[in-house]
């Protein structure tokens, strides 16, 4: 019995790692030979298939999304843990809302973004519409990780601070926040990862323009979207792999950073 279980465990571990390595290795092997300096030229043409505009658009989208979603998400998390009465109706409501939001497939966000931001509010396909759509999408993630980071801070620390005559704000900023910071940051990094990898929610909100966006109301395409479109066009399969290499490297780096911060969090307790 135990021998079979052990075998099954080993096999699944092997499979999981094997598949991961296979995917990454495959993309690297197929993509690296096709990475050319011309792919980083300032402007995209069908000849150079430059991903530079997409890189810029990705950075812009990530930056703007963090700008919108971080304050809302982090403050909500703080409210839920530090201020709201435990078990109050409002808290329940916010919990249900965030849980529901996190279960919705991203294409639904895309659809909503298109109908509401793009059409109803007349934002057109734009950085703004894309940002708002993915902001809503990552909000539950940020709220959840902020909550968890705050809840992991022992109550003894809060009491110690109050008992010295410190107020709520000082206690939160000087005692709770430094301890919770790595956890909050790692949630933010995971959100960045989700934004970078997103296509469905962006296709009809950010649009797919090939130039560098020159304002909030200008369309663009992120790296993931760029890959998706290139491969669906079928003309530049090799360049798709090359783009994929860059994307994979970015995501791996982010995940590493998030794990590192996560470890710091558990050690700091």
């Amino acid at each position: 019995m135990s021998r079979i279980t052990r075998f099954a465990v080993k096999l699944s571990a092997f499979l999981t790692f094997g598949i991961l390595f296979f995917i990454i290795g495959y993309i690297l092997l197929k993509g690296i030979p096709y990475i050319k300096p011309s792919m980083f030229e300032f402007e995209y043409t069908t000849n150079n298939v430059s991903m530079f505009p997409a890189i810029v658009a990705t950075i812009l989208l990530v930056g703007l999304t963090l700008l919108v979603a971080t304050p809302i998400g982090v403050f909500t998390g703080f409210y839920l843990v530090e201020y709201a009465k435990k078990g109050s109706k409002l808290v329940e409501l916010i919990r249900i809302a965030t849980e529901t939001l996190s279960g919705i497939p991203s294409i639904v966000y895309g659809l909503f973004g298109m109908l509401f931001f793009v059409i109803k509010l007349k934002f057109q396909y734009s950085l703004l519409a894309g940002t708002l759509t993915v902001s809503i999408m990552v909000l539950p993630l940020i709220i959840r990780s902020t909550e968890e980071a705050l809840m992991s801070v022992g109550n003894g620390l809060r009491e110690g601070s109050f008992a010295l005559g410190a107020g709520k704000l000082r206690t939160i900023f000087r005692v709770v926040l430094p301890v919770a910071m790595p956890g909050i940051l790692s949630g933010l990094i995971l959100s960045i990862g989700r934004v970078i990898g997103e296509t469905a929610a962006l296709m009809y909100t950010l649009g797919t323009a090939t130039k560098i966006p020159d304002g909030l109301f200008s369309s663009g395409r992120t790296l993931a979207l760029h890959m998706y479109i290139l491969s669906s066009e079928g003309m530049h399969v090799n360049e798709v792999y090359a783009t994929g290499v860059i994307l994979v490297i970015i995501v791996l780096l982010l995940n590493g950073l998030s794990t590192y911060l996560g470890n710091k969090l558990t050690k700091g307790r």
Partner: protein
Amino acid sequence: MSKISIKKMDLYYTDFHALKNINMEIQANEITAFIGPSGCGKSTLLKSLNRMNDLVEGCRISGDILLDDEDIYDNDYDVNLLRKRVGMVFQSPNPFPMSIYDNIAYGPRTHGIKSKAKLDEIVEKSLRGGAIWDEIKDDLKKNALRVSGGQQQRICIARALAVDPEVLLMDEPTSALDPISTAKIEDLVQELKKKYTIVMVTHNMQQATRVSDKTAFFLTGEVIEFGNTEAMFSMPQDKRTEDYITGRFG
């Protein structure tokens, strides 16, 4: 005049009547010990003295608690100022995850002291007061979590002293510590009573007799007996007190 006087005080956690008609006079520069079986309300009364109970949802208090003849539960009484005057040391050491220096300086900074020289002076004085200066004076930059439990607890005492309190509340300050650290803290408490009024919860009968001047015996939310420690341990007035201190109790 007593430092703290508790008059006809009742406390409820939502529907649970945790303290019943408490009357007690706590004298300045004395050590008052709270003893009694688990769950009888010792910590609850202690936390009422610096209003840490305000943080507990559903906690209601009636009656009066006076500090220097002022009702601390008055609506316009400044809670943060109260907690500066009435410091607290917790059962398990809870230093902040920052340097020893910053731990001690946290309170004074909270109350507006910014000058580096002044802070240096307070840090040294408080650590000396906590009987730990000699052990860690070269490690002030070290994270306070990286010292032993006994040292952490004395850092917490020093941290409480740093805001220049008048009263010091201690909730089983030695229960998480080894005998040597415990002895150090008991000596320290004796020393501290020259300057401060001390109220201390303890589960340890010997500790109560060793350090305290007055003792209050609690049972299911009531103070059964309150008086001179020596008198009480040699000649308890109430049968239940006698049962408890002679160890014949549940």
